[in-house]
């Protein structure tokens, strides 16, 4: 009908009512009234309107699986307003948990945020889509910091695009911790000594075992049985002295129950922003440096919206607002230009280069090593 006959004003109003009342979808309304076609034609004629042409095809919900305190709500609301797609956010505590859910199947996720060391595993298990970079016009590989982006590609195919990067150090409340610890050795010794009952470690084998390995100067990624045995012994000695084993350490640090905790960059920034007495320390022996990526799982129900959301969040102006909210540095030089100067000068976000040299990227084998998983479980149940 709409192909060969122009819609009458009465019919247009009827359709508008139906759309307003929600009895028809936006797509039906745009189709039947010819507005969709008109927008599309206008879009090609007027370059300024072009992006909307792509969004006009979007509908429904996009399921975003991510980490706590990791997005700027304003950006998400603006996406919904622009595209009509509602965002359903799902927050996780560990990469293992994400992997377990994807392995079990039928997650309904459209976009998720894996960390660098998981991507080859996802690829190996065929759980992740290769990305069509043409659908991400706002992602520009040339402006990315190459240190942080290489692990998004497996055998030359891009499976994930970088969101931000960070380090894993520890946070101290200097009101209570006066010893000025600067190393993982001091972290664990203080835990077993003067700070007994006041220290938290992550409920995450990668960082907790990794930083116990650093006590002995071993690699954060060590899978050597003897070295892991030493790390386990240290962890078991420290266990009775811990306040908690929990990756959600901000509440306990804020209310004064915990005085020191293993900590990721952004939590350090968020704590310091509200409580100046908080200090973020990168252990001088090293530790972890990481990149989080955006990726699309196999079988994502709303792939168009998934691409649109990733592209939206990687738009430099939008991404800069993300960075200001979550406090993790972007991998994109264009975004960094738009971030306020005091953030760029913040040593928590951008540590001195000599501190970074000792840091290691987590390895895929570190995450999937069954012995490490078992050590963590023994530590927790001890």
């Amino acid at each position: 009908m709409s192909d060969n006959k122009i819609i009458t004003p009465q019919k247009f109003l009827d359709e508008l009512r139906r759309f307003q009342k929600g009895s028809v979808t936006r797509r039906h309304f745009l189709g039947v009234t010819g507005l969709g076609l008109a927008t599309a034609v206008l879009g090609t004629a007027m370059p300024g309107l072009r992006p909307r042409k792509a969004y006009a095809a979007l509908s429904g919900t996009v399921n975003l699986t991510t980490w706590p305190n990791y997005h700027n709500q304003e950006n998400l609301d603006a996406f919904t307003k622009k595209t009509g797609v509602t965002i359903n956010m799902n927050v996780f505590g560990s990469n293992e948990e994400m992997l377990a859910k994807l392995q079990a199947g039928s997650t309904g996720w459209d976009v998720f945020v894996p960390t660098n060391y998981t991507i080859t595993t996802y690829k190996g298990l065929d759980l992740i889509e290769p990305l069509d970079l043409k659908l991400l016009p706002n992602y520009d590989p040339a402006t990315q910091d190459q240190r942080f982006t290489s692990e998004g590609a497996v055998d030359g195919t891009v499976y994930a695009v970088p969101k931000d990067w960070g380090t894993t150090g520890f946070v101290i409340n200097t009101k209570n911790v006066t010893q000025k610890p600067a190393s993982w050795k001091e972290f664990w010794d203080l835990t077993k000594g003067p700070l007994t009952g006041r220290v938290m470690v992550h409920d995450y084998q990668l960082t907790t075992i990794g930083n116990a390995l650093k006590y002995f100067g071993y690699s954060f990624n060590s899978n050597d049985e003897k070295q892991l045995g030493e790390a386990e012994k240290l962890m078991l000695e420290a266990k009775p002295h811990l306040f908690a084993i929990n990756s959600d350490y901000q509440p306990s640090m804020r209310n004064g129950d915990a005085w020191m905790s293993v900590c990721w960059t952004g939590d350090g920034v968020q704590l310091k922003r509200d409580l100046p007495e908080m200090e973020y320390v990168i252990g001088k022996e090293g530790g972890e440096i990481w990149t989080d990526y955006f990726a699309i799982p196999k079988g994502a129900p709303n792939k168009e919206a998934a691409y649109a959301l990733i592209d939206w969040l990687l738009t430099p102006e939008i991404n800069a607002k993300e960075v200001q909210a979550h406090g993790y540095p972007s991998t994109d030089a264009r975004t960094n230009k738009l971030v306020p100067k005091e953030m760029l000068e913040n040593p928590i976000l951008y540590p001195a280069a000599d501190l970074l040299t000792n840091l290691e990227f987590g390895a895929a084998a570190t995450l999937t090593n069954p012995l490490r998983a078992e050590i963590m479980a023994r530590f927790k149940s001890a």
Partner: protein
Amino acid sequence: MAASLPSSRSKVVTTLLVAPAGLFFLFLLILPLIVVIIYSFGARAEAGGYAPAFTFDNYANLPARGQAFINTLTLAPLGTLLTVLFAYPLAYFLAVKANERLRTLLLVLVIVPFWTSQLLRYYAWIMILGSKGIPSWLAWIGMTDVRIINTPWAVLIGAVYGFLPLMVLPIYVSLEKLDKRLLEASADLGADAPRTFWQVTLPLSLPGVATGSMLVFILLMGEYILPQLLGGGKVFFIGNALVDLFLQSRNWPFGAAVSTALVAIMFVTIAVYMRFVLSRGDTRRAALV
């Protein structure tokens, strides 16, 4: 002929009535349980998950979670016992002492906490038991440096708080149905109040205690969120071990073996407990409360 028609029809009716519950149990309880048991003899796949195998290794490995079993098997009964001790006087007051109007009000108050999610209420307890909460009041009266949060005590407090209504209501029902003339008879025959309580009231209310204890005990045995939040990840239950096995180490076969062991332990415990309770006097009839 005439008699067999209604009887065959009643059979059909019975089948139709039982079918929904039967199918529900078959597909959501029996079949999943069989899958779990099959998995428990399998092996962990290379990248986690399940790989078909037939091995008893997972069962041989159960002692590796011994501490989780010990924690659960001490804290679950202890939590149940504490809940009985707190719930019984309250239920007794509600059923025997309180007048009609006060009773309705108090019963509503017992149920009100259920209107808010248990998760939120445990988060509130993190604050109450944290150093800015009860320990700071204790410090004020001279007891300094008391730690409650992230200890087994916090988990027990959370258990009593969280499960109190589940215990109060069955005890209340069994006390409320108690024939008051029995108490008069007891007094007539010369028993004083404590003796009447121990020999008449308490035995007659035991079915309520048994029902409430079962509810609380079963829930505590499978508890995950309570030790996670109020135990700070340091008080480790079997439920926590299972979450780790399925979501962190992704060792599904071992997780299945731990689940099967938990189900077996619960089954035996409950069977023994029910037999013990039912053997005490004429409570069989009343146990159907």
